[in-house]
Structure formats: structure tokens, C-alpha cells
């Protein structure tokens, strides 16, 4: 095909995206080299002072980063396992198959921040139904939102509720597109359901699984809405994630320059670690 036409197809989208993004990215890098804060709201140049501060004198950022890693890896693993199980269950004929498929899809269609507001009343420690029903069973009230350890699990529960459907959708679409022959062969060999899963279904699903996990990790690393409404990072800093910490530095304390430093460092770390994770997963799950 002809050479020039390809640019006509590609360029509108590419240039619109670059055009919108070029300013924010350059601006962030430049801002990260400045001391812009509420006392001196100007684009001065202070070199890499901000970066030195980040790497030597800011344990709170690194704590929030490890917390984020813990939260996103845990939620994605849970979503993958549960999503895969649910997809396997409604893959073949069962009663009310279509009804369950719709039900399992619904949470991802709802606005996270709005559902979190509902979850917040749901987990309310004295007026919410969870503690009330558990109380009926004789369980003491659980501090869903004000205990530093339990609050993390509350965030995980809400994230799993919200995003397992996405995993479920990708995996079910994958299962439905699998070729029939390997399953017939396994059936002829008389393989047990367990062996069939380990030797046929799972390997065939590996590429789809990797794609789904990476996409979910990317999205999960942005956990913000849930934390923002559910706990506001609290109690203390128990559920504070990187995004939320950047938000506090940038838009609450107006240390714009330092927030830009955090943003840029965070982006670099994310791109590197996601690339590594993608490579490792591919090695682990696809046997040559």
C-alpha cells in the first residue's frame, strides 16, 4: 500500500495526544526543579534540591509507595483469582448463566467514588449494617475505617468489589474465544477436570491472563478515589497511597515544585517496574 496515506490515519490521533500532553509533561519536569510553594509561587530554579530531599529526607513518600505496592498487588491477585473462578463457573452451561454474567459485570459500570460513598455508610462503625449484622451474631463492632490495619482491608474489599468484574470480563471473553480441539483431545484422554485446567485451560489462557493482570496493575496503581472518600488516607497515614500523598503535598500544602518532583519520580518508577513485571510474568506463565 501507499506510503503517505498511513500518516493521514495515524497523525490526527497522535498529534492531538502529544499536543495535549506535551505541555503538562515539560511543565512537570521544569516545575520539579523549582521551589514553587505558597510563599514563593514562582518558577525559580533550585536545581535538584527537591530530588535530594525526596531521596534523603522523605520516608513518608516511600512508605506510601510501599503501601501502594502492597494494596495494588494484593487487590490484583485477588481480582485475578476470583475473576478467573467466576469466569470458569459461568463459562459452560449453568442455570441462569446470563443472569449471573450480568450481575458479575455490574460493579465495574458504577462510578467508584460514588459507590465508595455508599460503602462508607455500609461500613459505618455504629450506624452501618455490617457491624449491626455481625453484632447480631455476637461479634464485637469492628473498626472498619478507624483501625490502621483493618482500614487497609476495607480498601481492599471495596477495590475487589469494584474491579473484579473487569478481570472477569477479560478472562471470560478469553475463555469464550479458546479453540475447542485441545479440550476434545483432553476429554478423549480422559483427563480429570483438575488436570484439564492445569494442562489445557490455564496455559491457553496465559497470554490473556498476562494482559489482564498488567492492565489491572496499571489501573490499580492509581488507587485514589476509593482512598479519598473512604478513609482520606487515614487513620493517620495508614491508607495513604502515592497519589494521595502527591495530592496532599501539591494541592493541600501547595508545595507545587516538590509535588512535581514526586510525580516525576513516581512515573519513572512505575514505568520501569511495570515493564519488569510484564517481562517476569511472561517468563513465568508462558513456557516455551
Amino acid at each position, binding site marked *: *500500500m*501507499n506510503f503517505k*496515506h*498511513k500518516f493521514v*490515519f*495515524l497523525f490526527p*490521533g*497522535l498529534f*492531538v*495526544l502529544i499536543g495535549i*500532553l506535551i505541555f*503538562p*509533561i515539560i511543565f512537570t519536569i521544569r516545575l520539579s526543579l523549582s521551589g514553587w510553594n505558597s510563599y514563593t509561587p514562582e518558577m525559580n530554579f533550585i536545581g535538584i534540591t527537591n530530588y535530594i530531599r525526596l531521596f534523603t529526607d522523605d520516608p513518608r513518600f516511600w512508605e506510601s509507595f510501599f503501601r501502594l505496592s502492597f494494596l495494588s498487588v494484593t487487590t490484583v491477585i485477588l481480582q485475578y483469582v*476470583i475473576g478467573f*473462578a*467466576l469466569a470458569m*463457573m459461568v463459562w459452560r452451561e*449453568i442455570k441462569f448463566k*446470563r443472569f*449471573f*454474567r450480568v*450481575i*458479575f*459485570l*455490574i*460493579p465495574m*459500570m*458504577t*462510578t*467508584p*467514588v*460514588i*459507590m465508595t*460513598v*455508599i460503602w462508607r*455508610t*455500609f461500613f459505618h462503625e455504629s*450506624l452501618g*449494617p455490617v457491624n*449491626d449484622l455481625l453484632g447480631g451474631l455476637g461479634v464485637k463492632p469492628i473498626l472498619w475505617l478507624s483501625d490502621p490495619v483493618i482500614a487497609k482491608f476495607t480498601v481492599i474489599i471495596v477495590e475487589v468489589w469494584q474491579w473484579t468484574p473487569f478481570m472477569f*470480563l*477479560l478472562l471470560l*471473553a478469553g475463555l*469464550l*474465544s479458546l479453540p475447542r480441539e485441545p479440550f476434545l483431545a483432553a476429554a478423549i484422554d480422559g483427563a480429570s*477436570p483438575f488436570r484439564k485446567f492445569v494442562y489445557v485451560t490455564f496455559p491457553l489462557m496465559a497470554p490473556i491472563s498476562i*494482559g489482564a493482570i498488567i492492565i489491572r496493575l*496499571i489501573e490499580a*496503581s*492509581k488507587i485514589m478515589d476509593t482512598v*479519598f472518600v473512604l478513609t482520606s488516607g487515614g487513620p493517620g497515614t495508614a491508607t495513604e497511597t502515592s*497519589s*494521595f500523598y*502527591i495530592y496532599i503535598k*501539591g*494541592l493541600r500544602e501547595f508545595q*507545587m515544585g516538590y*509535588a512535581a518532583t514526586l*510525580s516525576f519520580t*513516581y512515573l519513572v518508577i512505575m514505568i520501569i517496574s511495570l515493564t519488569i513485571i510484564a517481562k517476569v510474568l511472561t517468563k513465568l506463565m508462558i513456557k516455551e
Partner: protein
Amino acid sequence: MSKLYTFLKYFFITFWTVFVVAPFLWAVSTSFKDFQSVNSKVTYIPWLDFEPTLEGWRVLIKSPAKGGVDIVEPYFNSIFVTCTASLISIVLGTLAAYALSRFTFKAGFVRNNDITFFFISQRIMPPIVLSIPFFIFLSTIGLLDSLLGLVVVYIVLLMPIAVWIMVDFFNRVPKELDETALIDGCNPYQAFYKVVLPNSIPGLIVAGMFCIIFGWIDFFFAFILTFTEVQLLPVKVVALNSSITPWWSLSASALVSVAPLIIVAFIVERYLSKGNLSGALK
């Protein structure tokens, strides 16, 4: 063994269904409560546990001057921003995806995959990283607190999704299709418009639905980049979540705002069951 498996399966499915539905049931019940029935003790069933009232629903259409919430305008704002940004993203994203799927690009070390990755990688950026520079960018060009400004930002959110889905989809549309059209005397644009596009409707629908979902559910950009002139639905609802939260109107407005997209769940399921989606989502 197999009986135990069946039992576990239905147990798990039932458990998950209850888990999925629980917050909705709670919200429906709460939306009919008043101050008394929320704050005295935990109540569940209308008439049995508490006397239901429509107050939570009524304030939604009252104007703020009369102590209402008025979510009608934010509702239309949200629909406008989501649909416009989705449409633009789909058009531009589909064109780019077609180019990336059919032609070879080479510029230095950059290949097709790198360009595709560039598009998709925009999703890695957390909203907070972009929102600070966007705040300054939009205020410079005077689009802060406006619908147009939000549309511009949402294109960045949504175009990667459109490109991701459409590249995969076009890779599955046989190349012979365009080649035949070219031999029959179409130019590349006609081949794309008259032959490839009509065969890509399922992919376009999936991409469209995903754009609409991710546009509709965004909160953070709307939260940072708008104040009083323009309000989007999620911001409006979350604003109710203050120190003395009116749980009833909060629940009612939450239900109203998540309702339209639940229809999307039915459409997605239809496509899944017909097998059209498996090609579109790899």
C-alpha cells in the same frame, strides 16, 4: 467429589452475587429513610423497620436555593462531557489504530509497537500527576472550570482505551478485505470507510462502551478542574459526603448516577453471549 464441587460452585456464586448486590440494596433502603431512621439504630426494611419517606428523592430536583441538591444540570454536564470526549477519542483512536495495524512505521528505533505502547502508556499516569499542570495549562488558555476544558482532558483518558481495543480488533480483521477493495479501485480512505469500518462494528461498540464507562466514572479531574460554573455528577454526589451527611439524598443521588451505565452491563453480556466480544477483547 463432583457433588462437592457443584455445591461449592453454587455456594461461591451465591456468595458473590450477595456481595455484589448488597451495597445497592442498602442504598435503595437508605434512600427512603429520614434523619430519625438513619441515626437511631440500623434499620433495613421499609414499613417494618422504619416509615419510608420520599424526601431523599425529592431534594434531587429541587433548586439549591430551596435547600435541594439539583443534580439535573450536573447530570447533563456529565453526559455531554462523556459522550463528546468518547466520540472524539473513538474517531481519532480508530484511525490511529488502523494505521498501526495495517502499515509499518519506522523512525529511528521507533516501531509500530512502540507507538502503540506510547498511546496505551498514557493510562499509567495517575490523575494527580496530570491534574496540577492541567490546572495551570487550562487556566492559561481560559478553559478552567468549563465543559470544553474537561473534554480536552478526557480525550487523554479515553483515546488510549480506544487505541488499545481497536488495534487488537483490526489485527483480527483479515488484510485481504482491504486488499480486495484496493484492487477493485478504491483509494485507501474508501477501503477503510466502505469496507473495513462496516466490518468493525462490534469492535467499535466495545471501544465505545469502554470509553463511556471510563469517562463517566472519572472523578478526580472533574474534582480538581471545575469549581462552580460546571459541575459533574460524581463531584456533586461526593460533595454531599460532608460532616453531617444526608444519607438518604446521598443514596438516592448515587443510585440515579450509577443507573444509566448498568444498562451497559446488559449490552456487554449480550455481546459476550453472541461471541462477538471475544474477538474484540483479547
